[in-house]
């Protein structure tokens, strides 16, 4: 996914398709092509929305982000990164906007409510719930990189492109977050 390449898709379910950077805006201007590319990256978008949007809002947030991307498709610059990175940026902004709105309206039930699938009946479920709690307590930037790297399963370089930082910064942020989680885990086990 280097510069000059229009690379789509990521992860196990996303395919990869490349064309020249000059072709990208033309291809995006076709509704059918745009929809096809969206279909391709929906697994990643779904994971991002489920990790970052308030409980029950993931679907709406994705719809909003996709419509905004379609509206502003002429602004997509393949030299600045992949289409997936661009649209995930929009999705993250849309998620934060929804969180802010819910918070202002007093309707945010808490991010942990989103983790209901983690069964407490199994040791791993209990352990994951503990991890989720610690992740939720991290500073925003550390939480973002942990969520994007470990849960959304994006590579370091893509997380870096997404957050507008270097891959070295992402790695050091990840290390800091892991240290903090480890420290708190140790504290909880001691108690």
């Amino acid at each position: 996914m280097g510069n000059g390449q229009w690379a789509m898709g990521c992860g196990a379910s996303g395919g990869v398709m490349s064309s020249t950077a000059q072709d990208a805006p033309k291809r995006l201007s076709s509704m059918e092509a745009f929809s096809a590319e969206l279909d391709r990256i929906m697994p990643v978008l779904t994971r991002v929305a489920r990790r970052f949007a308030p409980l029950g809002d993931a679907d709406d947030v994705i719809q909003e982000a996709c419509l905004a991307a379609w509206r502003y498709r002429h602004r997509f610059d393949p030299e600045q990164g992949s289409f997936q990175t661009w649209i995930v940026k929009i999705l993250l902004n849309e998620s934060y906007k929804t969180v802010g709105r819910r918070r202002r309206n007093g309707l945010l039930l808490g991010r942990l409510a989103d983790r209901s699938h983690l069964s407490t009946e199994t040791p791993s479920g209990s352990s994951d719930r503990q991890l989720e709690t610690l992740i939720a307590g991290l500073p925003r930037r550390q939480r973002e990189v942990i969520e994007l790297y470990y849960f959304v399963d994006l590579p370091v370089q893509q997380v870096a492109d997404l957050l507008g930082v270097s891959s070295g910064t992402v790695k050091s942020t990840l290390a800091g977050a892991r240290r903090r989680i480890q420290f708190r885990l140790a504290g909880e086990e001691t108690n």
Partner: protein
Amino acid sequence: MDIDRRLHEAGQRWRESQGPALQPPSPASLRQAAPPRLWRKGLAAMAAAAAVAAIIFGFVTLHGATTASEAIRNLRARQANPTDARHVGLGPGCGIPAVDMAALGSDLRAGKPVIPGVVGQPTIVHVNIDPDRPQLKTTATVIVAAPGTLPGHGFSNPSQHAPGSLTLDDSGNWKASLDIAAQTQKSTQNLTFVPKVPGLYPVYVIEHATSTATPPTFCGGIPDKGGDAQNVVGWIQVP
């Protein structure tokens, strides 16, 4: 257990626990989406565009003051002499500005009034609810935002939203705010803002039309799916 491995495994379990991917908007929805607009760079240009197409339901009147008591005197004086009042109109529809901007002289920035403020002293934002628009079930929030704050995502060019940029999405950038329910509140309200540091503070109005069966047409900025719009209606300049 190694924390890195533990996080990887937790992430893997989480992904496996998820159902199928959500569906993107249908081509029909995309077709209905507003066509791309050519945006000028910068907040000032966005505010100018908003001036061309002013929106919805009320007036927001801005009055500057150096002290609270002086503000009250000024307010009364201006109420007694409406020709002296500096106000910005949120017109009741597209292209119906409610104020003659030319009459405001040089005290403008991007077509919006600039009100002087003083660090540590209250500045009053005087909000008049338009009594002639009771049929619009619209609520609004008047916000004095931190200097440099951009509209939220979906209301401006996404390319402006570089990492680290201030936006209305982060309520931490709201320095003072006032919620208004237009269908129930018709009288005047005051929003008091006490600047702590110098700067040019944008005054925003966010309108929400989510409670209407048929959202009114917004012309300033880009409305989102829920029928919201965000616009700069003035500035508070604190030297």
